[in-house]
């Protein structure tokens, strides 16, 4: 009996234990996505005999004799279903990985406007948007601007990939059919710390279909960091592809490469591994005490570890002025300890890569990465290959949030490809995302601050401990960054920081939106709020008394890069915006017995990382008066592609629909540091702008003397025109120009969040009554997308503030390894946030723009903590604020 998919019979019988999702993808329906594989996220939603189901938990054999409709079959090939059109009109997506499932779910709802979306959408997770754009799409609200004749910059244009996203034809990392593909599965450590004394591979190799087993004996001896930075020396070299010591539960022990996932998994189960169990340490304070097990005690020099014997991978001890003097001169001093937990990025597309050798034997990786160029560099070094013998590219990437600024799979895939000579795929399961990827660094911040009666700060002192887990990757850099803009935003003569990034035998921490700032700002902004309360002053006023102003230095203890300046300043406007919001009356209904409160917090972020961030771009004139942009940076819903097209269109006097973008492939340009540190617009965009300006000059010159202006189809001369078509055909080589940007100097962006909340002391329930976020993004190049970045950042931060925590048990094992244990914000959890933009124009960023991608996350948790303090009188110091914890704390007070 066949399965009828989108009107066509498929005769291949499903395997007995196969789920419908993998069957549909095997039959070519790549629009059906794997987000969780447990029935929770809805990315795999399809219709079976007209009824919506989660195909990952639907037995495939049961689809025999039935009709299955996937996103690919929703509309005729030449048209869109009305719901697809609405998701396009409202840009109800960012990375788009959840979109096919959202659309298939929406189609099954009561038309046209379902009454209870929070309930209807509880089986559809979106990690990017914060759901406002999804709601607009479902409700038929159009927010995308029609491309007009005027300038593209400033318009809310839709993403170029939108039509592919809504039709399920956008190709993500694993949406390719690779003949001869082998599958790689990893045996992971059950121990928090152990030495592998023997691995018996015989039984695994005997499993039919198994091609290879890889152990530490097969791995390069070289140490590297999974963290990716322009300068590898920023990160400790403490990791091997496969090591003979495992330092956390979930670390790679061995890999099995086989014809099928089933055989690879069976091979893993048949590996016999002997371990010598070593003492483990799970807490960073305990790890720093004398006599604690040293996680990397075997590494002496050359690994860039500050004090391996003490588990300190990086540290910062510095003081500006004299904090003791500052405290002595204060009218009020407040000190408290704040804690933030591990949080998972939970990008809906898991980590993974497909590798192969191309026709020339060149190692090629298609990977879910934010850093294809840096990953190529790392692979070349690791396997001692010339750079031109490695190519790394991405498809559309299904969400990143910093988690993919890391080489977590490519090294192992490359090793397997080189061993077998065959194409190899490693696709993380959702459980592996939690146990074997990275998390946000948990921070403990002890902070003491003093202020005079008028609110002027006299001293700030912080002791910061971040837990980097078993490997150092981003640990030192996150710690440094966390201790910079969070306190540099305040003008205070006396500042002191003692900070430690510490190894423990736990799942490694890594880069995550905000890169340490969110964690430290939680403490700083809570403390500022508490000082204001103790002085009886308005928290906004206390901020105004102390914030840096244009022309002033950005000072924080320690050696920080000196290329950071205030090249535009809208923090004052951002504070005014929340003051106006707070002045508004309470109009929202509040149940009897609930307590109402308000709170705010601010954040500053550097537009780009220190030490240089490089981007190359090229633009080529194509036939048909069209252009092609080549740029290295990755698109994962950040929308940089849209902005690149807008920047080029205005410069070249054309429209974005005449521009195609080739990107995120080490073959298309010379170099790109990567899509991280909020650089998609301010660095890669700057390179595109330079290339466009250069090409414009080129075209005017080519058109000959008297060229006046460049239009969409021709160069206008003083006396006539030369068509672009003629210019494109005039020479032997294509007309092309390049652009480059080094990522320095850098400006700063500002964000301020304000909440009004209500709390039920009887149950701990917290409701957000109103949420306002003001942002200084410089010139807003695309208001639709910038608003989306802010809403998404606020929503993700609300998850970290109210719900999310990766838990580790006494044995070091992650116990929250799926979306049922780890609660991501759903439609019902995220209130609307009003977004207000400051009116500024930056002197550095392209056309006056600044970064606005990581930073909206950072002020959210402290603003909510401050509102909770206002409502209840209690200072909450440990994230997250779940109902049970709120109730327990209020009861204890």
């Amino acid at each position, binding site marked *: 009996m066949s399965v009828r998919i989108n009107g066509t019979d498929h005769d291949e019988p499903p*395997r*007995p*234990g*196969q*789920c419908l999702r*993998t069957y549909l993808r095997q039959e070519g329906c790549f629009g059906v996505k794997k987000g969780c*594989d*447990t*029935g*929770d996220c*809805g990315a795999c*939603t399809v219709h079976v005999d007209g*009824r*919506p*189901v*989660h195909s*990952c*938990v*639907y*037995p495939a*054999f*049961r689809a025999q004799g039935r009709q299955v409709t996937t996103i690919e079959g929703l509309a005729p090939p030449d048209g869109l279903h009305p719901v697809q059109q609405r998701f396009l009109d409202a840009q109800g997506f960012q990375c788009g990985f959840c979109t096919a499932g959202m659309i298939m*779910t929406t189609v*099954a709802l009561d038309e046209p406007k379902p009454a209870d979306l*929070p*309930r*209807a*959408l*509880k*089986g*559809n997770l979106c990690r990017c948007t914060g759901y406002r754009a999804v709601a607009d799409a479902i409700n038929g609200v159009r927010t995308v601007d029609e491309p007009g004749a005027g300038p593209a910059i400033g318009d809310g244009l839709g993403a170029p990939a939108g039509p592919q996203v809504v039709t399920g034809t956008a190709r993500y990392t694993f949406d390719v059919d690779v003949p001869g593909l082998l599958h790689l599965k990893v045996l992971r450590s059950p121990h928090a710390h152990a030495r592998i004394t023997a691995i018996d591979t015989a039984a695994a190799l005997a499993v039919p279909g198994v091609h290879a087993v890889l152990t530490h004996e097969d791995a390069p001896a070289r140490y590297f960091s999974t963290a990716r930075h322009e300068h590898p020396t920023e990160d400790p070299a403490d990791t091997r592809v496969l090591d003979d010591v495992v330092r956390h539960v979930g670390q790679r022990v061995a890999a099995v490469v086989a014809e*099928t*996932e*089933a055989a690879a*998994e*069976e091979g893993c*189960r048949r590996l016999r591994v002997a371990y010598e169990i070593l003492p483990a340490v799970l807490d960073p304070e305990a790890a720093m005490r004398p006599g604690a097990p040293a996680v990397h005690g075997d590494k002496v020099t050359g690994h860039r570890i500050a004090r391996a014997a003490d588990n300190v991978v990086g540290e910062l001890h510095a003081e500006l002025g004299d904090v003791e003097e500052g405290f002595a001169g204060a009218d009020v001093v407040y000190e408290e300890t704040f804690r933030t937990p591990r949080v998972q990025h939970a990008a809906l597309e898991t980590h993974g890569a497909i590798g192969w050798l191309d026709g020339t034997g060149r190692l090629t990786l298609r990977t879910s990465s934010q850093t294809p160029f840096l990953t190529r560099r790392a692979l070349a070094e690791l396997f001692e290959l010339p750079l031109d013998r490695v190519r790394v590219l991405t498809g559309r990437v299904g969400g990143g949030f910093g988690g993919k600024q890391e080489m977590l799979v490519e090294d192992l895939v490359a090793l397997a490809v080189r061993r077998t000579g065959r194409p190899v795929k490693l696709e993380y*399961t959702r459980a592996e995302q939690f146990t074997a990827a990275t998390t946000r660094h948990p921070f403990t911040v002890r902070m003491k601050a003093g202020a005079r009666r008028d609110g002027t700060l006299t001293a700030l002192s912080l002791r910061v401990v971040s837990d980097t887990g078993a490997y150092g990757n981003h640990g030192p850099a996150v710690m440094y960054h966390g201790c910079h803009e969070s306190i540099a935003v305040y003008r205070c003569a006396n500042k002191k920081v003692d900070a430690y990034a510490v190894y423990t035998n736990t799942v490694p921490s890594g880069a995550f939106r905000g890169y340490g700032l969110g964690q430290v700002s939680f403490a700083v902004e809570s403390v500022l709020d508490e000082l204001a309360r103790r002085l009886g002053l308005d928290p906004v006023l206390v901020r105004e008394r102390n914030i840096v102003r244009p022309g002033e230095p950005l000072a924080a203890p320690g050696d920080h890069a000196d290329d950071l300046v205030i090249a535009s300043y809208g923090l004052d406007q951002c504070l005014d915006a929340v003051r106006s919001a707070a002045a508004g009356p309470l109009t929202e209904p509040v149940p009897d017995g609930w307590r109402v409160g308000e709170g705010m917090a601010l954040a500053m972020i550097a537009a780009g990382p220190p030490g240089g961030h490089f981007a190359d771009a090229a633009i080529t004139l194509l036939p048909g008066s069209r252009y092609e942009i080549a740029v290295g940076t990755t698109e994962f819903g950040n929308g940089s592609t849209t902005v690149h097209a807008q920047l080029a269109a205005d410069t070249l006097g054309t429209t974005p629909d005449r521009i195609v973008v080739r990107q995120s492939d080490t073959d298309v340009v010379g170099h790109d540091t990567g899509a991280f540190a909020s650089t998609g617009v301010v660095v890669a965009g700057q390179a595109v702008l330079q290339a466009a300006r250069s090409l414009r000059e080129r075209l005017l010159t080519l058109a000959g003397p008297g060229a006046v202006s460049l239009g969409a189809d021709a160069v206008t001369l003083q006396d006539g025109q030369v068509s672009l078509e003629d210019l494109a055909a005039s020479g032997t080589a294509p007309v092309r120009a390049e652009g480059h940007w080094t990522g320095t100097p850098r400006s700063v962006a500002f964000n301020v969040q304000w909440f009004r909340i209500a709390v039920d002391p*009887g*149950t*701990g329930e917290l409701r957000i009554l109103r949420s306002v976020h003001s942002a200084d993004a410089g010139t807003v190049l695309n208001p639709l997308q910038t608003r989306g970045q802010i809403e998404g950042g606020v929503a993700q931060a609300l998850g970290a503030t109210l*719900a999310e925590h990766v*838990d580790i048990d006494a044995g070091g094992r992650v*116990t*929250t390894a799926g979306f*049922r*244990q*780890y*609660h991501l914000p*759903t439609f*019902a*959890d995220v209130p609307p946030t009003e977004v207000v933009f400051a009116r500024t124009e930056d002197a550095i960023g392209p056309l006056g723009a600044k970064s606005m991608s990581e930073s909206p996350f950072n002020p959210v948790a402290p603003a909510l903590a401050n509102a909770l303090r206002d409502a209840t009188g209690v200072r909450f110091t440990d994230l997250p604020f*779940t*109902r*049970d*914890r709120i*109730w*327990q704390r209020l*009861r204890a007070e």
Partner: protein
Amino acid sequence: MDLHTVVEVVSPAEVGQWRPGDAWLAGGTGLFAEPQTGVTRLLDLVAAGWTPVTASGNGLEIAATCTVADLAGYAGAQHFTAFHELATACCRAFLASFKIWNVATVGGNLCAALPAGPMIALTAALDGECLILGPAGERRMSVVRLVTGDGATALAPGELLRSITLPAAALTGRTAFRQGSLFAHGRSAVLLIGRRAGAGLVLTVTAATVRPFQLRFAEVPGAGELAAALRDTIAADDYVDDVHGLPAWRRHLTRRYAEEIRAELAG
């Protein structure tokens, strides 16, 4: 997810076919949501085509394979008002979306025996009795006794749940429902159902506890009597301690909601 160790599906399957390595398969939403490396064969019950809900003068018989959607949509026997009031509320208490309802079954929810299982709450509150088929014959057991702990049931290897019968006597009294969760529409951390039974009150506590607890009162108790009964019946370590809510909070909400239910149904 794919269950790679499964090599065969028996469909439809019957009692007596079970052997070690087999798993009874209803909707599959539970079985396919976790790795099942010990399972080599699936015994499909859905293909047997059991009638989802059968009404009679004796009450309602719900087949184990009745989907949540079928239960939520069941419009027969309107005189069983208690059932209809509670069925909708309990279906909505699922963490899972309406799409899962199209596939997941009542029996699957009972056999998974998770504290938050809302079909456990519904059928326990309505004095449901399970019909269990096994190689040695059939037996009957109350829902309250079927679920013995977090993820544990009284089913022996090879036994299957055929149906749950809700007696007519339990389907007409007034009811009250309370659910608490860490999140809006989230997984239940506390789910209490009260039901008037003649002059009496039946209070069923689920989700907060590792197994369902039922408190039966011949007359509606006073607040103090109810609180004392909860203290006496449910020990401190009967409250679930997991990521879905602190045990102290669950106990607090249990007592709070129990009193709300008592007050609501007392009048």
